[in-house]
């Protein structure tokens, strides 16, 4: 791999592997300390499997006290710690490093408390996203953020990435739905960020911890906000013979004063792949489809469906229909949520990108992406959280063809640079991890990157928590800028020229 920033940390541990295993075995049962290569292998990567590295040791603590002792021990001996949830991250945020310990929170799977009156649940970090909604639905409540990996991904990982999902235009991201976290600091102390009230005294450290990619502390307990299950949910499927018309319709729906619970777009390739995979009843001859979900009271949903249908027709939709029953509504969404694996069946490998743009630039971005697809001779399918401008282009490639992964990464990098060019960002919800370190130089200047490092140092002065992720080092920066193909894309100015 070209990426070598994560293979070692800046601080050399002051303890060797056998001694550290011995010390960890004093804290944990022996089956909770993994150090043989075959036991370590399952932890060598997260869902960005192109990047792999064996950790020195993996620990699977059972209790908060064990986590604190592990952290304290590693702090004393300058051993890096990489916290890990379900390993579903798509940016390599949980990629191990060779002299580091992977701290798996997989055993922290308990829902500790559900308070229906306060509409909160206290859960351990290893609880799966969907498990929270499953457990609270009997009370008429659910946990709103719903990333596509919600069957598997954990709430701890959701906080690390500030995960979104298809419902965040209306219900917000993880940061909007977490009230309090218990955090173990790098030296093994516990601090509480946020509170059971709607705010807490001092700096909003809770906002800072969301999306911090495990680099500021280890989340060991989470209080989430629960949302009342709406009286009614209904989804409209609209088909277009032109991608740009679909993009235009998205803005028109919002301009009509409607905030859909979800507003998703898929292009032809993604629609066809999803249809082949789950038979959702999508029109496979369309150039693009929109899924527009409306929720609220019964009467409100009826009113908004009529409004949205009219807008979609006025924008040139060739077909507009609502799900005929709840089963079909679920099926429409199943197709969307299965879009990544569905597209994945079209080629030996696929690479999922994650940029956000101001929505008005969608036609331009899609056109440029088509040109790049031809240039690199790699097909790209587009799945798009259209309501909030979050693109997920899926590049199809074959890793066994020499040079094709590198070509794919170059293509992906160009897409991210395009996002910056139009005033967007290189990652909407998957995180920087190790994947997008190079693009961080384009989105941020050196002073801004230095400020990020300073924020990190306020929590982790020695740099032991998930080192090498999310914020590139100055050394890496100067090396990257000397590369011949370093893109001179400038960060966006306030006025864009190709609206």
């Amino acid at each position, binding site marked *: 791999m070209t990426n070598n920033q994560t293979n070692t940390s800046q601080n050399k541990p002051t303890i060797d592997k056998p001694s550290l295993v011995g010390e960890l075995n004093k804290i944990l049962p022996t089956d909770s300390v993994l150090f043989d290569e075959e036991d370590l292998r399952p932890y060598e990567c997260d869902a960005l499997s192109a990047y792999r590295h064996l950790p020195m040791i993996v620990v699977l603590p059972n209790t908060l006290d064990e986590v604190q002792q592990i952290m304290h021990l590693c702090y004393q001996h300058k051993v890096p710690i990489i916290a890990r949830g379900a390993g579903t991250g798509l940016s390599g945020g949980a990629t191990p490093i060779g002299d580091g310990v992977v701290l798996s929170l997989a055993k922290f799977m308990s829902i500790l408390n559900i308070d229906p009156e306060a509409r909160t649940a206290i859960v351990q970090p290893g609880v799966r996203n969907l498990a929270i909604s499953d457990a609270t639905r009997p009370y008429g409540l659910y946990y709103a953020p719903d990333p596509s990996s919600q069957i598997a991904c954990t709430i701890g990982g959701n906080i690390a990435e500030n995960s979104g999902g298809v419902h965040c235009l209306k219900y917000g991201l993880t940061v909007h739905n977490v009230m309090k976290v218990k955090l173990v600091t790098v030296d093994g102390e516990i601090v509480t960020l946020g*509170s059971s009230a709607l705010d807490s005294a001092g700096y909003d*450290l809770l906002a800072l911890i969301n999306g911090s990619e495990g680099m500021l502390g280890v989340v060991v307990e989470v209080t989430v906000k629960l949302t009342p299950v709406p009286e009614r949910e209904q989804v409209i499927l609209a088909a277009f013979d032109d991608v740009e018309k679909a993009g235009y319709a998205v803005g028109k729906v919002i301009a009509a004063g409607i905030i859909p619970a979800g507003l998703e777009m898929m292009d032809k390739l993604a629609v066809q792949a999803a249809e082949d995979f789950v038979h959702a009843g999508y029109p496979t001859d369309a150039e693009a489809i929109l899924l527009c979900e409306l929720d609220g009271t019964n009467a409100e949903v009826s009113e908004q469906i009529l409004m949205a249908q009219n807008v979609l027709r006025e924008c040139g939709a060739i077909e507009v229909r609502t799900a005929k029953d709840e089963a079909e509504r679920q099926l429409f969404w199943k197709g969307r949520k299965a879009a990544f694996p569905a597209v994945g069946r079209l080629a030996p490998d696929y690479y999922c990108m994650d940029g956000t743009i101001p929505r008005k630039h969608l036609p331009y971005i899609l056109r440029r992406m088509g040109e790049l697809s031809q240039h690199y001779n790699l097909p790209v399918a587009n799945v798009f959280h259209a309501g909030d401008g979050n693109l997920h282009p899926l590049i199809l490639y074959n890793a066994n063809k020499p040079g094709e992964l590198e070509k794919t990464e170059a293509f992906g990098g160009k897409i991210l640079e395009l996002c910056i060019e139009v005033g967007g960002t290189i990652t909407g919800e998957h995180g920087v991890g190790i994947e997008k370190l190079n693009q961080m130089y384009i989105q941020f200047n050196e002073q801004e990157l230095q400020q990020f490092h300073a924020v990190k140092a306020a929590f982790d002065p020695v740099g032991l928590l998930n080192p090498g992720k999310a914020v590139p080092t100055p050394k890496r920066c100067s090396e990257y800028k000397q590369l011949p193909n370093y893109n001179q894309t400038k960060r966006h100015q306030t006025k864009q020229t190709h609206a």
Partner: protein
Amino acid sequence: MSNDLTQELQQQVASAYTEGKALSIRGSNSKTFLGNKCEAAPLMVSEHSGIVSYEPVELVITARAGTKLKEIEDTLAAEGQMLPFEPPYFGEDATLGGCIACGLAGPSRPFAGSVRDYVLGVKLINGKAEVLRFGGQVMKNVAGYDCSRLMAGAMGTLGLMLEISLKVLPKPAQKLTLVKQLSVEKALNAMTRWSGKPYPLSAAAFDGEKLYMRLSGSETAVESSSKLIGGDRLDSNNSFWQQLKEHKLPFFDSNKSLWRLSIPATTPALDLAGKTFIDWSGAQRWLISDEPADKIRDQVKKLDGHATLFRNNDNVTTFQKPDAGLMEIHRRLKTSFDPKGIFNPGRLYSEI
């Protein structure tokens, strides 16, 4: 004349940094009362003003910190949009910068979200006189640490905000306020019960005698929900919430200490002498009381809340302090943005 004073402000911060001279950031002075006394040379920001970009379809507005809140809300209203967190002004010239720095939200807070929930990006000058941009103008953005939301409620101690980008939302088609005469216990129960239902509740308050519940949404949703909730319709729908937000209701007409208690919404009535006005569906309680600060703060701390001395007492520190471990993180974070401690020293805590 340009309203972009970035260069001038950067020069002023640069010389303050060189000389190690403290600065007190000022907008319109509408919220100078909030926070501990800060003895420092004023740094005037109100001339650095103007809406930089606003595209209703994108649901995003970007404006300079000195822009008047009124200009922003009027501009949004002309397009049928709003700031969902209903910021209090406490002065007609209140600026966007002060609004974000103080992080105060109005009655819609428990239903619509907080100030920081709507912050998408910030351009600021840090304590080393560097102009930095964090976040952006898009809804979802996880590139780098979220330094922009961190500015909300930081009382200007981490940097001088130059520009702020906010998510905005369409104004509801219909608003309706229902009033019922109830005991405090029944009022709190009703708030909890109705807040847990999927109805378009947008505010809930209790003035000691009457429960006020506001519904905002589509006409049909507001009408159907109002029949379920019941109560008398309030004619002066907007002015009640406006007066509550701006502390113009008779309740606030007092020279005694005014406390803002932020506590879990489901907490029963507190055992503290004085009079209480309940807002935020139970989660924010205004208390006018002579009770000692320590007693009030101990009691709310046990509830996992905190108490802010809002007005009328110069002998008490404004904000409740976090525990020692957290305070140390505060101190280091402050140093990371403002190594010489030039921005608003002491206004939030004496340590930072």
